[in-house]
């Protein structure tokens, strides 16, 4: 007959299992925090957001011409 597992050992096993499970995610999150998560996000769509086809001056010029 085997002796029952001590509570500390059961908890330790559980902690170790969780740590192994979460370690890759933790590493990824830390890397994102330090080196920036945006490195793989394409730049062109972001640029099109910042700079629309028609800028503010062009819109203003069009409005002024209509007057």
């Amino acid at each position, binding site marked *: 007959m085997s002796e029952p597992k*001590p509570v*500390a*050992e059961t908890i*330790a*096993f559980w*902690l*170790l299992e969780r*740590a*192994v499970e979460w*370690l890759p995610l*933790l*590493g990824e999150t*830390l890397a994102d*925090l*330090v*080196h*920036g998560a*945006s*490195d793989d996000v*394409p*730049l*062109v769509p*972001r*640029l*099109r957001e*910042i*700079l629309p*086809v028609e*800028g*503010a*001056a*062009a*819109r*203003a*010029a069009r*409005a*002024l*011409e209509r007057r």
Partner: protein
Amino acid sequence: MSLRSAVLFSAIAVVVAFVAMSILGCGLFPKVPDERAIARGAVLATAEAVKAADVACAQYGTATEDLELLQSCAHHYDAARIALIATGSAVDLWDRAETRGSVACALARALAELEQLTQDLAARGTRPPSIIEDARALAATLGGCPDV
């Protein structure tokens, strides 16, 4: 303590030490940004500067009903936008060696158009937005382009 428990607690200690070292290491030895990261930052900063200059131009041109200024700003905005999107494409394809050299030159063309925008504003006594200086400083770290 049994041998099994000792091994288990040692494994947990290693995991805890790894996490602690990762966190401490991040603060003590920050990674030096690579050339691609600097290029991304320079392109985004220049885009924001072009936008700021365009908005400043639109506000001033509308207030003074200066159609010539508005049309000139719109022309330089279009040229800067095209150059920046070309630069962005080159940065997105960074791993292809031939695109790297074109980044600094495409960005230099965008900065030249931004320069024209700020000169149009300065000629009318308007102080260009300070973000433009930030973009210039960041772009300068890429080394510039010999052709522009």
